[in-house]
């Protein structure tokens, strides 16, 4: 595959590293591969994810057949991997819309290169996150009881329950994210419709493009709608992850009942989500040959945000420890001590290393510019954030008020399945997305290229 946009070192423009990137070249670079095919690499990658998809299906079927006893949970540690996964996946899911909306509102023009696939990441991650509480229900066939509907039992949902808040938060957020993503996709679907060489593709892209023509009225209305949705999206994202934080904070458990949880969860979500965007951006850049559009400067900007978020995370952990001590409650102090020295202490130290120590590498410009270093840091952050979520669950539940109830969690094969298989499923969905939909917003890139005088 010959590259349409030839990247240059040093970059020719601030956010586009090709000397010339006119409208045709940008369209060709982004939409071209969708029509010519991605070749063997894409098929091999898709084939590699299929076993994970199958594994996830088997795990879910086995879970539904046997019940949640196949996990390492017990009557003390009633939450486990499914809840940690839920928080982790929705954290990643929050980042796409948050990044896209915040960067749009603050007029960060470099968002043009990353917003589309970051939002796609949101959709898939939220969908996977939404599965987790349902499979953890124990009786998933009754999941629909969460919705208020006229029923012969004359029952209503308990509106004061955190589970019901979760349900509405996830459903609203997922549907909102789909709309937000689709609205900014319409003009690019029209481009696909107009470029498609076969009738079938013309029909499909044409149907989803809704008859878009790119008129001045359509553009101005679309911009009004999109920016207003972005302004609404930021508080929505913050509220969604705050509600996830309330699942813990609204309880009476030591180590959970903390008012810092909602904001601390939001920062954690942005942190792990940005780390995931870095990994996906590197993959898309390499896979689709978009080196001219996703430039080292983009990675530099994202690395700075990761560094900032890691400092805020460390501050949040320190606040937790301080409040545990300052509150004076014996159980709270015991949980903090248990975190550092108890059963899961090695994991806790690993978490601190991954989330607080390793990202400090990004103070050095060479680390921000070096893709392998940045990817390793981003993966470490994602591992650290998952450990944070599982340890929030395990530490408190293993070290509650009543010493006679202290127990440990024992990881089973099925816990492992629900940890790993969804990653493959996510990769599978993402590969399909890359193949069918332009991964970078073409009209945003055209606008950027004109502003950068690269066109």
């Amino acid at each position, binding site marked *: 595959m010959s590259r349409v946009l030839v990247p240059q070192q040093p970059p020719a423009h601030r956010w586009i590293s090709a000397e010339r990137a006119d*409208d045709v070249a940008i369209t060709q670079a982004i939409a071209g591969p969708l029509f010519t095919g991605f070749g063997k690499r894409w098929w091999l990658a898709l084939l590699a994810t299929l076993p994970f998809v199958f594994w996830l299906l088997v795990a879910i079927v086995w879970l539904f057949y046997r019940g949640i006893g196949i996990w390492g949970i017990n009557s003390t540690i009633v939450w486990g991997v499914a809840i940690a996964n839920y928080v982790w996946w929705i954290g990643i899911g929050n980042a796409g819309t948050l990044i896209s909306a915040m960067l749009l509102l603050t007029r960060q023009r470099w968002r043009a290169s990353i917003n589309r696939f970051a939002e796609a990441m949101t959709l898939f991650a939220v969908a996977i996150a939404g599965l987790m509480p349902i499979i953890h229900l124990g009786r998933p066939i009754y999941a629909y009881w969460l919705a208020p509907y006229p029923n012969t039992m004359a029952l209503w949902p308990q509106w*004061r329950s955190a589970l019901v808040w979760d349900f509405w938060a996830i459903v609203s957020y997922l549907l909102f994210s789909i709309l937000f993503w689709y609205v900014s996709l319409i*003009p690019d679907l029209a481009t696909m419709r*107009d470029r498609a060489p076969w009738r079938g593709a013309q029909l499909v892209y044409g149907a989803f493009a809704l008859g878009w023509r*790119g*008129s001045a009225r359509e553009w101005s209305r679309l911009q009004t709608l999109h920016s207003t949705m972005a302004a609404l999206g930021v508080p929505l994202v913050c509220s969604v992850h705050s509600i996830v934080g309330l699942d813990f904070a609204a309880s009476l458990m030591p180590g959970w009942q903390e008012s810092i949880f909602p904001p601390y969860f939001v920062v954690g979500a942005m942190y792990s989500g940005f780390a995931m965007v870095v990994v996906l951006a590197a993959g898309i850049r390499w896979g689709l040959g978009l080196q001219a559009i996703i430039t080292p400067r983009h990675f530099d900007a994202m690395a700075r945000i990761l560094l900032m978020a890691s400092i805020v995370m460390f501050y949040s952990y320190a606040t937790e420890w301080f409040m545990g001590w300052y509150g004076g409650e014996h159980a709270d102090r015991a949980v903090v001590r248990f975190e550092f020295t108890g059963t899961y202490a090695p994991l806790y130290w690993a978490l601190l290393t991954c989330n607080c120590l390793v990202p400090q590498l990004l103070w050095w410009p060479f680390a921000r510019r070096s893709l392998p270093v940045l990817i390793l840091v981003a993966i470490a952050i994602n591992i650290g954030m998952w450990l944070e979520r599982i340890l929030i669950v395990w530490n408190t539940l293993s070290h509650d008020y009543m010493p006679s109830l202290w127990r440990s969690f024992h990881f089973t094969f099925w816990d492992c399945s629900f940890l790993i298989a969804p990653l493959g499923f996510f990769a599978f969905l993402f590969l399909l997305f890359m193949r069918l939909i332009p991964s970078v917003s073409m*009209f945003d890139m055209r606008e950027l290229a004109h502003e950068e005088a690269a066109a």
Partner: protein
Amino acid sequence: MTATLVAQFLDAETLQAALQRVKSTGHAALDAFTPYPIDGLAEQLGLDRSRIRVAMLIGGLATAAFAFGLQWYSAVIDYPIDSGGRPLNSWQVFLLVPFEVGIFAAALAGVIAFLRSCRLPRLHDALFEIPGFERATQDRYILVAASEADPNDLRTVLTDAGAVAVTELRLP
């Protein structure tokens, strides 16, 4: 005799200059089609301001009010649970669900208002018949202008302004 002409330009600056020329020579500039949003183009064409945000506000608030009302009705009237004498109307907690669904409903109302104000979705448009119009979503900047009196003069104005192709639009 009225004629509607479709002129294609190679960049946005030429299109905007042509639009000014068309207006100053007494013809009507109807619409412009561009591959990316051009700042100020809607104002130049004299398009009315959109009321999408009003629709979003109404849709969001109405849905939020409905959600709150549903919770209040179910918790206070239809299915009251007395839990240690706590108030049945726990309005602080009842604000969470209206906030979430309200924002989603605002977005949905916005999308519907957007589609209605742009008359989308549509299966076909007369402009799609114009040769080269498919490039309006890629690299062509297209101006649609009409002339009441003198179509030839309009054609000259557009060509002089730098149009690479001028086609007459025949409405069925």
